[in-house]
């Protein structure tokens, strides 16, 4: 076993004989079953993406072509759906969503980083209890507190105010960010912290030179996932806003009309509203996994 000193080839499960054949096409199974599995993977992937492709195609059809049976796949393309959507003035809700998502994400990071620091680098005594307390608040369903949050907003004149949503989204996402940043901070080697201390580095320099390089990916993941969750949120936004502070998801729910055809414009609207999440998610696929698992999977 130990006589073969070979470089680690990640993902390769080839037997020693096959490895000579070349790097990219090594496979241990017979080619036929390998081909079948590849075809299966492609079929499953296409099935999962098909509804989205259908949404894209429908959004570029005219309302009459969008609502036919059987579907008119090759109908001429049209921008009618997008025109109707943008004529409905979606900018205030889109801007509200952007404000809420960006500002709450910023607030989350500002609050989460020091807290994660106090739970890892220089931990408080009962740090595991505090950590699990934060997690437990994620298990407290939003509906359990929504009425007092509504009544308070009513008394404090915060109904239909984007700042109230920002505060609530911050508390909704803070536990996730704390868990994630803590798991990254816990990986900062103790020896390096001690070495920095011996060298007389202050807190600012330690943060910049020792901690930041390790934690930056964690901050990026936390920011991505907090942005997505805030952008997607519907229940709180629906209950707590009406006209001025309505967010994009609330706008979407009001976009279906009971009369006439609406499929193309609903598809166009859904795509535009999902676009920021799609772009951010595709651009940072690996960050997505880290974020969703709250840093447990890196």
């Amino acid at each position, binding site marked *: 076993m130990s006589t073969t000193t070979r470089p680690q080839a990640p993902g390769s499960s080839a037997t020693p004989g096959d490895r000579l054949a070349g790097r990219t096409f090594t496979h241990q199974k017979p080619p036929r079953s390998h081909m079948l599995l590849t075809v299966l993977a492609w079929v499953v992937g296409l099935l*999962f993406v098909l509804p989205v492709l259908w949404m894209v195609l429908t959004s570029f059809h005219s309302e009459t072509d969008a609502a036919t049976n059987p579907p008119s796949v090759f109908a001429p393309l049209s921008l009618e759906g997008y025109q109707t959507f943008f004529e409905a003035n979606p900018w205030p809700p889109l801007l509200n969503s952007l404000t809420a998502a960006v500002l709450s994400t910023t607030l989350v990071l500002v609050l989460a980083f020091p*807290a994660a620091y106090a739970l890892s680098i220089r931990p408080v005594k009962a740090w595991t209890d505090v950590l699990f307390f934060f997690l437990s608040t*994620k298990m407290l369903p939003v509906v*359990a507190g929504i009425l*007092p949050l509504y009544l308070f907003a009513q008394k404090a004149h915060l109904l239909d105010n984007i700042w109230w949503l920002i505060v609530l989204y911050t508390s909704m996402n803070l536990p996730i960010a704390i868990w994630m940043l803590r798991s990254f901070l816990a990986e900062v080697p103790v020896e390096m912290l001690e070495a920095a201390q011996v060298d007389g580095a202050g807190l600012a320099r330690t943060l910049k030179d020792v901690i930041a390089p390790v934690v930056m990916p964690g901050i990026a993941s936390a920011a991505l996932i907090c942005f997505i969750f805030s952008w997607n949120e519907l229940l709180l936004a629906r209950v707590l806003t009406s006209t001025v502070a309505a967010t994009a998801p609330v706008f979407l*729910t009001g976009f279906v009309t009971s009369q006439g055809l609406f499929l193309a414009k609903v598809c166009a609207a*859904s795509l535009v509203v999902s676009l920021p999440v*799609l772009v951010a998610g595709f651009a940072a696929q690996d960050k997505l996994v880290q974020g969703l698992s709250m840093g*447990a999977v890196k």
Partner: protein
Amino acid sequence: MATASATGSNGAAMRKAGDWARRAPLLPALIFVIAMTQLPFVATVVISFMNWNAYYPDERGFAGFDNYVSTFTDTNARSAVIVTIVLTTSVVLLSLLLGLGIALLLDRKFRGRSAVRTMMITPFLIVPVAAALLWKHALYNPEYGLFNGILTWIFGEGAPQPDWISDNPLLAIIVAIVWQWTPFMMLILLAGLQSRPLDVIEAARIDGASTWQIFTHMTLPHLRQYIELAGLLGAIYVVQNFDHVFTITSGGLGTANLPYYIYQTFYTAQDYGRASAAGVVVVIGTIIIATAALRTAFSLFKEESR
């Protein structure tokens, strides 16, 4: 060295100051989270013992356990409990199984692997309300939805044209949510698969272990904690699902889950007392389930470290 001598030579006051220096960075976040999650819940508990309907503001008063009694005797509330349990367990189990299968398919080298991975992630990146609208109108619609359109393509004029949502309302919601959550499960399980020690697996293979043996004896035990994690996190999010129920059926046809039931009781019926009682019941239920889940996770964790 430095910390050891500091705690050794200085007095208790110094140590106390040090404790507070440690706590200080934690406090803003901790106070904020307590204020925003625990205080509202305490208020919910208080309101749950009150007779308070915003339509009848003059009749506000103490109600004792009336709201709880009506929560447990109300058929809608009981149905909401059952729907929540069915919805959450079926979505989590189905998306875990699908996610595992797809993760295994993607844990191999093949042409276009990253393209398939990207396609798989897409459903998760559609805003939930938008996804629910897509399923309801573009896919399920009995007149011009894609599903019935495909049936017409295959069977021609006399093709069956089921009304997907009316025929199986809960299943329609479950399928739409599974579509969104399978990528989540798949991503976590794929990360788990890729963290397997490959040299050990290769050694087992050389020793003559079959693919199935490797899967059941090595891959699954290794994946167990990832499955636990994905299941727990998935359950936390799915149990609170509001968007799909709200969009696809508006809680009708016996599909109202607890979040929707509470939303309706408080927002539409304005019965604050009853909505709060239901909220407290949800929290107690969640605590019981979450404690059990955490305990399992913890015992697993202990097994691993032994």
